[in-house]
C-alpha cells in the first residue's frame, strides 16, 4: 500500500527506453572494438530468433491455405493466403456464432465493464486521495481486500448469486422473478432468463473485481496531481463539488483513459467468469472461442484457422500496449498485487 508514489519515480523508464541515448557511438572517446561488436550482434540475433520463433510460426500458419496440420517446420510464409482469416471471420468454430457476434460480445463486455467501473470509481478515488476522514484507512483496506483475491477466488459465490436471479413463466401463465417472487410450489415453470447465463450477469460479476482495481489505480494517479490548483480554486470561492467537476475531472481525464485501457486489456482476455457462467454459444466471447479451438477436443479445427484467430485476438491488445507502454510499465510495477 505504500507503493502509490512509485509512478512518479518510474515514469521515465520507457521514455528513455525509446529515446535511446546514442551519444556513445557519436562522441564517445572509446570505440567499441569490431570483434566485440560482432559477438554482441551474434548474441542479439540469437535472442531475436528466440523471440520471433513462435511469432513467425503462428504468422506462417495463419497465412497457409492447408487445412491439415503441419508435418514439417515452417517459420517463413511460403504463401500469403487469407483463406483461414476468411473462414474465421465467417464462422470460427462449429458453434452457431459468427465472428462479428463474438467481437460484439467481447467488445461490449470489456468496454461496458471498463467504463462503468471507472465512472463509479472516480468519486471514491477522489475521496481517498484528497479528503481526510475518520474511516479512511478502514475503507481503503476494504477496497484493497478484493484485490488480493485472485480472479478465480470470487467466482463461486458470484456464480451462485447470479444464478439465483431468474425469470420464469409459470404454468398458470404468470411471470415471476426469482428470488423475489416464485411460482406456486410444485407448479411447472419455464425458465425465461437466468442472470448467470447472460452477458449482463458476466458483466456485473466482472465489475466486482474491476471496481476495486479502478478505485485503487485512479487514487494512485490522483495522488500525483499537485493540489495547488484545487487550493487556488477553493480560495477563489469554489466549493468542493465545483473543484471536483471543474478542476479534478479535467485534469484526471487522460489518466482515466489510461485506467480504462489498462482495464480493457484485462477484460478483453477475461476467461474465468464467461467460461464458468455462459452456456449459450450465442453469448460466447473471443477468449472462449480461442480456448475452444485448441486442445484435445478441438481436433476438427484446422490449425491455420486457429492461428488466424490467435492473431486476431492478440492484435487489439498489442496495439493498445504499444500505444500505452509508458503508463503500463509504471502502473504495473506500482500496483503489482493483482494476479
Amino acid at each position, binding site marked *: 500500500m505504500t507503493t502509490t508514489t512509485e509512478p512518479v519515480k518510474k515514469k521515465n523508464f520507457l521514455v528513455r527506453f525509446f529515446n535511446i541515448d546514442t551519444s556513445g557511438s557519436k562522441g564517445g572517446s572509446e570505440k567499441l572494438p569490431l570483434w566485440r561488436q560482432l559477438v554482441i550482434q551474434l548474441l542479439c540475433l540469437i535472442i531475436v530468433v528466440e523471440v520471433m520463433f513462435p511469432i513467425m510460426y503462428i504468422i506462417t500458419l495463419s497465412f497457409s491455405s492447408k487445412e491439415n496440420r503441419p508435418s514439417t517446420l515452417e517459420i517463413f510464409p511460403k504463401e500469403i493466403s487469407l483463406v483461414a482469416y476468411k473462414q474465421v471471420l465467417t464462422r470460427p468454430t462449429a458453434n452457431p456464432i459468427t465472428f462479428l457476434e463474438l467481437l460484439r460480445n467481447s467488445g461490449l463486455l470489456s468496454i461496458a465493464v471498463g467504463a462503468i467501473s471507472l465512472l463509479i470509481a472516480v468519486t471514491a478515488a477522489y475521496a481517498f486521495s484528497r479528503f481526510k476522514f475518520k474511516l479512511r484507512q478502514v475503507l481503503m483496506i476494504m477496497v484493497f481486500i478484493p484485490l488480493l483475491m485472485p480472479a478465480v477466488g470470487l467466482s463461486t459465490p458470484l456464480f451462485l448469486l447470479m444464478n439465483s436471479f431468474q425469470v420464469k413463466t409459470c404454468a398458470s401463465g404468470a411471470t415471476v422473478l426469482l428470488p423475489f417472487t416464485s411460482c406456486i410450489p410444485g407448479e411447472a415453470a419455464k425458465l425465461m432468463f437466468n442472470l448467470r447465463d447472460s452477458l449482463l450477469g458476466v458483466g456485473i460479476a466482472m465489475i466486482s473485481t474491476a471496481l476495486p482495481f479502478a478505485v485503487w489505480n485512479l487514487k494512485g494517479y490522483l495522488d500525483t496531481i499537485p493540489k495547488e490548483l484545487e487550493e487556488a480554486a477553493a480560495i477563489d470561492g469554489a466549493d468542493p463539488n465545483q473543484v471536483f467537476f471543474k478542476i479534478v475531472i479535467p485534469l484526471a481525464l487522460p489518466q482515466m483513459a489510461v485506467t480504462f485501457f489498462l482495464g480493457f486489456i484485462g477484460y478483453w*482476455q477475461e476467461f474465468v467468469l464467461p467460461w464458468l457462467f455462459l452456456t449459450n454459444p450465442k453469448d460466447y466471447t473471443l477468449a472462449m472461442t480461442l480456448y475452444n479451438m485448441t486442445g484435445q477436443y478441438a481436433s476438427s479445427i484446422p490449425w491455420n484457422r486457429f492461428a488466424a484467430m490467435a492473431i486476431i485476438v492478440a492484435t487489439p491488445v498489442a496495439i493498445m500496449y504499444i500505444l500505452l507502454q509508458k503508463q503500463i510499465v509504471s502502473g504495473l510495477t506500482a500496483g503489482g498485487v493483482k494476479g
Partner: protein
Amino acid sequence: MATLSVPMKKKTNVRRAFLPYLYLLPAFIVLGVITFYPLVYQVIISFTDFQTKDLLLGLNSPKLNHIGIKNYIDIITGGLPVQNFDFFRVLTYNLWWAITNVMVHVPAGVLIAVLLNVKGIWFKRVYRAIYVLPVVIPPIVVGTVWRNIFDEQYGAMNQALTWISSLFGGIDPIKIRWLFEYKPPIPWLLPNGPLPLAYYAMMIANFWLGWPFMTLVATGALQSIPKELYEAASIDGASRSYQFWNVTVPLIKPAMIPAAIYGFTMSFNLFNFVYFMTGGGPARSTEILVTFAYDLVRNLRLYGAAGAFAVIIFFVVLVIFLITNRITRATESYAES
C-alpha cells in the same frame, strides 16, 4: 468579515465531514452488493456441502448441510472426492513454479538489458522494438500458441528438434510427449511434487513471456546510473565484472526487487496461461492453486469445497503479500538512504 466567517466555517466543517462519505457512496453501494456480500457468502458456503442440487434455492435449500470445517479439513488432508489431489503438493509446486520463473526471468532480463546497453552497438532500436513483443501479446494467446508448439505429433518444437538432429545425422523424427508424459525427467528435483516434462515446457514458454518485461524495467534502471561512476571505477582499475557486481547490480536493485515481486505474484496466480497451456495436466501435476479452485467450481461443481478453497487461497496470497510488502518497504528505505 470576521463575525461572518465563524458560522460559515462551522457550517462548512459539518459539510466537510459528510462530503467524503457522499463521494464514496456510489462505489460502496455497488461494492457492497457485488463484492463484499459475495465475499461473506463465500465464507458461509465454505461451511456447507453446497452442490448442484442446491443451486435453485441457494442457502435456503432444505437439503443443504452445514458441515462445519469439514471442507477445510478435507482440502488439507486430501479428503476431497478428487483424483490426484494433495493440497501441499499443489502449494509446493505453485511456490516452486513462481520462484523458479522469477529466478530465471530476472537474471536473463538484466543480462539482456546490460547487453543492449553497451555503447555503440548497431541496430539497438530494432532489437529493443523486437524484444518488447512478448510483453504485448495476451497470455491466453501465448498459452494456446505454445500448447500447439509442444504438440506431440505436429508441434513446432518436435519438428525443430528433428531438424536439428538431422543436421547431426539423425533420421527418426523426434516425438517427445511434452505435455502428457507424466514421468519426471529429473526425479530428485522437488521430491514433494514431481515435475513432469510439461513443467519444463511451461518454463520455456513462460520464459519467452517473462524476461522481456524484466529487460524493460532493467533498461530503465540502467540508464539512470550516472556514467561517471563507471569512469571513476575504471580509473581505479576495476575490471568489467567488478564494475557489474559493485556498480550496476546495487544500483538497479531498487528497481528490480519490485519488478521481481510483481513477477512472483503474477506467476503465482498465472491462471490464464496455465489453464490454456496444460489445463493443469497431466494428472494434475502442473496444477496451481487457482486452476484447481476453478476446476472445483467449474467441472466438479463442489461449491462448498470451492468456497473453502478460495478462502484458503486468500490467506496464502495475504501471507505472500505481507512478506513481499515488507521486502518492498525495506528496499524503498534502502533506496532513499
